[in-house]
């Protein structure tokens, strides 16, 4: 039959390149890359979760979930507050924090998810800004740390203390890198599976014609809500990890210029809804940004924004995924010509 599933062998062969990339990426510390660059990659891993979160929901439905800053920020703050008031260290508070952040964002966004149109996007963009002003102004700043943020011990630091002082920081950097890499790989595989499953295609259908989707049998509210929940889980995980790895928790996590703009650029540049494109772009842009630090420095946000405007207007279908497809095609023709002869 024309639409039967491909054979198991063929499916396994298809996974070879992606598995190679994952293994190669995990081997980076073995090449002697430590210290600063390992930190950069750890941060890139966390941002990869945000990028996947944004791409999985907004890249498919075109409902911009600009609120990933809000979701990531709230889970970061829950991690911090659980330490401040209950003495819970991040090892234990990450999972409850993710749960709280998802619950919170669902309550706030549910009404706007139901409604068609742009309300959801505007609400999600402005919400984190409200949170920032709430946290930094009286009287809540007393309880929420205000401008200075909330200090907390970083993840696994209690274990690190058992080591001699010189080995502590390398140990932490390596553990964080592997933890975030593992999580990113799991998240990436799941997101890819989901984005190209029936469910993913339903999200895309909603993005292309929501009225039609509803009228032709798709329970749009349920699909949108589920998509939002998966997306929120990824963003909340990123936020909690960020808090646990880079304390203190300050309003910086909530500010969209920090936690929304890089993933958004990755999604647009990488190709909306393609998962692979944005994921690759996320790493490229973050590493490129560090390399270009001396050249652009504080022009970063402006550079990102100008890039966004130009891309959105000239190449809304994304650049990186396009290149990837071309590359795959070139490799495929090369391979087939080899095997045929």
């Amino acid at each position: 039959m024309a639409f039967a599933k491909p054979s198991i062998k063929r499916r396994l062969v298809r996974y070879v390149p992606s598995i190679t990339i994952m293994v190669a990426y995990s081997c980076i510390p073995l090449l002697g890359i430590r210290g600063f660059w390992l930190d950069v990659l750890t941060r890139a891993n966390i941002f990869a979760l945000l990028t996947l979160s944004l791409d999985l929901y907004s890249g498919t439905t075109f409902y911009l979930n600009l609120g990933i800053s809000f979701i990531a920020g709230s889970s970061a703050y829950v991690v911090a507050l659980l330490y401040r008031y209950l003495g819970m260290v991040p090892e234990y508070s990450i999972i409850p924090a993710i749960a709280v952040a998802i619950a919170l964002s669902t309550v706030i966004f549910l009404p706007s998810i139901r409604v068609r149109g742009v309300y959801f996007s505007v609400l999600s963009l402005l919400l984190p800004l409200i949170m920032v002003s709430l946290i930094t102004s009286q009287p809540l700043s007393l309880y929420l740390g205000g401008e200075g943020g909330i200090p907390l011990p970083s993840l696994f630091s209690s274990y690190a203390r058992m080591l001699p002082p010189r080995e502590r920081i390398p140990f932490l950097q390596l553990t964080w890198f592997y933890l975030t890499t593992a999580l990113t790989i799991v998240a990436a595989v799941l997101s890819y599976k989901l984005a190209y499953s029936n469910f993913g295609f339903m999200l895309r259908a909603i993005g292309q014609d929501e009225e039609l989707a509803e009228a032709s049998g798709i329970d749009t509210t349920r699909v949108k809500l589920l998509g939002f929940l998966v997306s929120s889980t990824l963003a909340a995980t990123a936020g909690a990890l960020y808090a646990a790895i880079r304390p203190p928790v300050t309003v910086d996590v909530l500010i969209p210029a920090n936690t929304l703009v890089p993933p958004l650029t990755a999604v647009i540049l990488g190709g909306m809804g393609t998962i692979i494109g944005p994921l690759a772009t996320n790493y490229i842009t973050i590493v490129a940004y560090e390399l270009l630090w001396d050249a652009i420095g504080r022009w970063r946000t402006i550079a990102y924004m100008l890039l966004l405007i130009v891309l959105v207007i000239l190449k809304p279908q994304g650049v990186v995924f396009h290149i990837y497809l071309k590359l795959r095609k070139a490799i495929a023709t090369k391979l087939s010509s080899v095997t045929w002869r």
Partner: protein
Amino acid sequence: MSSLLVCEGVTKRFGGLVALNNVSIEVGKGEILGIIGPNGSGKTTLINVISGVLLPDDGRVIFDGKDVSKLKPHVRVSLGISRTFQGSRVYPYLPVYYNVALSARSVYRDPEIARAKTNWALTVTKLIAEAVELPINLTPFKLRMVEIARAIVTNPKLVLLDEPFAGLSAEEVEEVIKIINKLNNLGVTFIIVEHKLRYLMKLAERVVVLNNGIKIFEGPPSEAIKDREVIQVYLGGGVS
């Protein structure tokens, strides 16, 4: 013949405009009902109310003995009402296969059944060759077929077709009519909205004529073309 769909005094207003004014219709199981009327007479609004895209301000829609007036469109699809839109609405950037399969998948829990149903619908509408194409590369006729495939894949008892013949050539219209007759023989009930009466002459046993949201005629198409009020509504427009 027992009735499959009953609309009782359906009224729909938009601002000050009355799009449907106390319209009642009844459709029997296995029947093909035509709805005709000039532009803006409320034909599409009626389809929207039956399929749940719009909620009526007044009146009830009873389907298969169940009041569905307040149900959401996707629930009605799973109960057995499916529809097409005017001017072929499809997901422009999803392959034809998914355009059809997503509806199947949302009605059938079992993915294998959904797959089989999708293959069946694509076969009936002769779309197998185009299954991996994007709709933007298709002809208007093939697009219409995608819509029909999507409408029949959910195993409907009632299919609402909104101007299924608009913009098609004579042979293509014959193709569509063939499919409608084929499904009708399998027991599917149809409501067909058309601007022109000509195509419904052969197809429909009964037509309802709407004008300014009011039902002005109900009966066999052969009598509709003799009715004075119907002729008056169509004066200059041409009934044929």
